[in-house]
C-alpha cells in the first residue's frame, strides 16, 4: 500500500514529470491491491490540476505541462485496464476538434492532454471538422463538445456549429477556446463555457457539466 508520504511523492512526481517514479509507485499500489480509483481521484488528478494552475499562473511553461501529462499517462496506462474491468466511470465524456477550415491543432492537443489528465474520456475529432461530425460525436455519448479555433477567419464557424447542434436537437454542452475568442464571444454565440487556455478549458468543461463553479 502507498503511505501518505508515498502519495505525496506520487503527486510531486507527476508535477515534476518524473514518469519513472509515477510508474513505480502506481505499480506498487496496483500490486498491493490498493483502490486505484481513489488514488487517481485523490492524488493523481489533483497533481495535474496543480500543474495546470501553475501553467495558468505563468509559473511553468508548456514543455513542463507536457512532461507532467506524460508522467500522468504512465500511471493511467497501468490503472486504466484494471478500472475498465470495474464499473468505473470517467469524470465525463468529451469530444474536441478544430472547426471547419481551421487546420491548427496545437491548442486543441494541449486541451486533449489536460482533459485526459483530469480523468475525462476524450474523443479527438482532429482538425477541419464538419458540423455534422460534432453532432455525430454527441450522439455517441459525448456530454461536452469542445470547439477550437486559432484564426479570425475560422472563429465565426464556432457560432455555425452551435446553431447546427441546436437545429439537430443536440443536448451536449459546448465549450469554446482558442487564441481569438473570449468570454464575451462565447456568450454572444451561445456557448456554454469558454476556456482561456488548456487548464482553463478543463475548468470550462467541468463548469459546463456542473462539476465546478
Amino acid at each position, binding site marked *: 500500500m502507498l503511505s501518505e508520504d508515498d502519495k505525496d511523492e506520487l503527486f510531486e512526481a507527476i508535477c515534476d514529470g518524473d514518469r519513472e517514479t509515477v510508474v513505480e509507485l502506481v505499480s506498487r499500489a496496483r500490486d498491493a491491491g490498493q483502490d486505484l480509483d481513489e488514488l487517481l481521484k485523490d492524488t493523481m488528478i489533483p497533481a495535474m490540476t496543480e500543474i495546470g494552475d501553475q501553467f495558468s499562473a505563468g509559473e511553468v511553461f508548456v514543455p513542463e505541462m507536457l512532461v507532467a501529462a506524460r508522467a500522468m499517462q504512465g500511471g493511467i496506462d497501468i490503472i486504466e485496464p484494471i478500472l475498465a474491468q470495474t464499473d468505473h466511470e470517467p469524470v465525463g465524456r468529451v469530444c474536441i476538434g478544430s472547426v471547419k477550415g481551421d*487546420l491548427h*491543432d496545437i491548442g486543441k*492537443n*494541449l486541451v486533449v492532454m489536460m482533459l485526459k489528465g483530469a480523468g475525462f474520456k476524450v474523443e479527438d475529432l482532429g*482538425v477541419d471538422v464538419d458540423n455534422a461530425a460534432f453532432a455525430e460525436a454527441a450522439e455517441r455519448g459525448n456530454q461536452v463538445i469542445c470547439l477550437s479555433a486559432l*484564426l479570425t477567419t475560422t472563429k465565426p464557424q464556432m457560432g455555425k456549429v452551435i446553431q447546427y447542434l441546436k437545429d439537430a436537437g443536440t443536448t451536449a454542452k459546448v465549450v469554446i477556446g482558442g487564441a481569438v475568442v473570449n468570454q464575451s464571444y462565447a456568450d454572444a454565440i451561445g456557448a456554454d463555457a469558454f476556456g482561456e487556455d488548456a487548464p482553463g478549458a478543463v475548468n470550462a468543461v467541468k463548469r459546463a457539466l456542473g462539476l465546478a463553479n
Partner: protein
Amino acid sequence: MGFDQSVTTTTPTHVPISELLPKASARLQRQKQYARVLGRGGNPASSLQSWLTEASDCIGALAIPSIALRPVQASAHHSSVQIADLTQVENPTLAEDVALGGTVTAYLVTLGFSQNAAFEWLNGDYGAHHVQSDLSNEVLFELGRIAFRKQREQNAGVRLKRISVQVNDVCGQGKIWDPQKVQSLLSVFDDAGLDVSVTDTGCFQPLNTLLGLTVALAS
C-alpha cells in the same frame, strides 16, 4: 543597379533538411520554455530530449524543404499595387517602392508535409507532436532566412525588403490579406510542383509555409 532577375529560378530549390535541423533545434532549445526543462536534468529533461529526437526524426523523414522565387510584374496605383493580372494589394509602402522603380519577386517557402502526416508518423503521441510543431516552426524560419540570404548574396548592392503575406491574424493585430488574393498570388507558383494551397479561411496547406513578396530597390 537593378535587381538581377536571372538569379530567380523557374524550378524550386530543395534545401537538404540536414542544413536546417541542427540550427533550428539549437534555437528551440535556447527558448526559455525548453531551456528550463532541459537544464533541470533528470526524467523531465530526458522526456523532452527524447521528444526532440523524435521530432527531428519525424521532420527529417517527412520534410521536403523548398524555396521558390518568381519575379512578378508590379505597378503602383496610388496606395496599392497591381501584381501582374492576378491581384491588387493595398500597401502604401510597397506602392511607394514600386513607384520608385522597385522590382518585385514573389517567394514561397514550404516544408512540404502536413501536420496530420506528422501526427501519424509520431503514432499519435501528443507530446512529441507538440515538440515537432515547435521545431517545424523553427525549421521553416531557418528556411526563410536561407531564402532571403540567397537573394541578398545574389544581388549585392541592392536593397531588399520583405513583405510577408499574413493570411490570418491570431492576436487581432497586423495587416491581413484576403485569402482570395493570397490564392491569386500563390497561383504564380502553380508550375513549381510544390503542392501548396490555401483554404477559403486562409490556412496554408501544408501549414508550415511562408508566402510573400520581396521588393528590390537600387541603393
